[in-house]
Structure formats: C-alpha cells, structure tokens
C-alpha cells in the first residue's frame, strides 16, 4: 500500500514527511512499548502505535521505519511533531483504534513481519523464529 492510500483508508492526517506519500509500505507492526519495536529488526515495517513521545521518532530512525501511525486519536507531543518534521519520517494521525487500523492495512495487503520472540522465564536464551 502506498502511504497516500493508507492515509485515505484510515481517515488519517499526515503531519510530516508529506513528500513520501508515494512510498510503498509492505509490512506492518503494532506495539506500545519501544523495546518491543526494537526487537523487530527483520524488515522495514510501518509502526501502528499509541506512543506520543519523541523517542518513537528516534526508534524509527534507527530501524528505518517508513511510516508511523498514531492511533485512537492520541495527540502527539510537540517534541514528537518537531522531531518528525526534522527527520522527514511520515507520521499519520488517525481516530481509529490500533485494532481497526491494523485490520484496514491487513485487508489491503499489508503483511505482518517475521519476529523473533525472546522467551522469558527459566530458559532466557531461547530464541524462536516465528512467521
């Protein structure tokens, strides 16, 4: 899906990276904890989240995340908006929930990404590759 189509389908508002509307997004991932996002190193996936602090932009820079969608009508902090504009990473705001946003992207062909699950508990070193 092109970012342009995503914005349209989720009734979104793009607040940064407007020059990247034609960028194709193939995969998606949803998380509200930054470390869970950082555990996702396999591919360039868009992030659907409720995080509104500027740190999410830094994470996107580190991971080459092509698009951040801030869901359920949450308002990004001023610092996030400034960081997003400086970095040029597209940020889209939507009133829809994370669940609905994911559903819309999924039905339109955006795929999930492979993740590595680090197991907690006794065997802390196990690492599973999950499709």
């Amino acid at each position, binding site marked *: 899906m092109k970012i342009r189509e995503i914005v349209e389908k989720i009734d979104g508002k793009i607040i940064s990276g407007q020059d990247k509307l034609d960028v194709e997004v193939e995969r998606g991932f949803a998380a*509200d*904890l*930054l*470390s*869970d996002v*950082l*555990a996702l*190193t396999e591919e360039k996936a868009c992030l659907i*989240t409720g*995080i509104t*602090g*500027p*740190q*999410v*932009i*830094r*994470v996107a*820079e*580190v*991971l*080459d995340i092509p698009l951040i969608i801030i869901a359920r009508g949450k308002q990004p902090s001023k*610092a996030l908006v400034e960081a997003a504009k400086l*970095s040029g990473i597209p940020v889209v705001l939507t009133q829809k929930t994370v669940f609905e946003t994911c559903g819309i992207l999924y039905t339109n062909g955006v795929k999930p990404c492979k993740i*590595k699950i*680090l*197991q*907690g*508990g006794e065997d*802390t070193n196990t*690492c599973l590759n999950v499709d």
Partner: protein
Amino acid sequence: MGNEKVRLVYRIKAMDLANAGAASSHVKSELQKYGIEEEVVKRVGIICFEAEMNMILYSVGGKLKVEANSNSVEIFAEDNGPGIEDLEKAMQPGYSTAPPWAQDYGFGAGMGFPNMKQNSDVFEVESAPGVGTKIHAIIYRRKENEAK
C-alpha cells in the same frame, strides 16, 4: 572507506527524555557515512538506543562511546550509578523496574538487556550497586569476518 577509525562519544544525562534516542540516531548516521554495512548499523543503533534509554531512565547519567574499524564496531556504555541490584533478573526478557509513568512513554517492556544481547556478537555487563554499570558490546562486520 573501511580502514578509517571512527570514535564517537556522547554524554548522557539522567532523565533527559526530550533528547532520548538522539545519540543513537546520531551514531547511526555517522556510521552510515563511514560506509558501515546497513545490517551492522541497525544492530549498533538498537544496542545504543537501549543503553541510552537505560542510562536516561535508571542512572545518574553516563557516557556512551562507539568505536568502529574495518573489523568491528564496539559500544561502551558507562554510568556513574546507582548500579543494578539483580543483574540476572535484569537480563530476563520481560523483567522491568520501570515506574508506571515511564510506561506511558513506551518504556518498561523489560526487553532492554535481551535486545542488546540479541544484537551483539559479544556482550558483557558489569554492575556494582552503589558504583555503576558498564556495558561492552562488539558487533563484527560480516565482510571482513565470516566467523558467524
């Protein structure tokens, strides 16, 4: 490129949430300039980010140092306290001591150390309560080192 040495040093301030992640982001763009492989840069970025966040949230402040040469990238994160009481627990995925307010910022997944270890070829932590925590990570550059 390749034979040049890169050395980056950042001072990380405690509770400086506004700039959280800025050092890691800078590390990434600098390493890219030196032509370091994309996959290596990403792993370094993740380790730096987690280390930077730990220092901001849990320490009184410290230093983040990144050194790169043709074989590897090394990360040193050293803070001045208060140190980690139970390092074994801190290494467990999901274990977090983050206060509730930090969770609203997206912190406290309890994946900091596991993420760092996961992305390192060599990963060492030394911590003494009352003294501080030292993290040392090495990432080998694949082209020159086919060891893995």
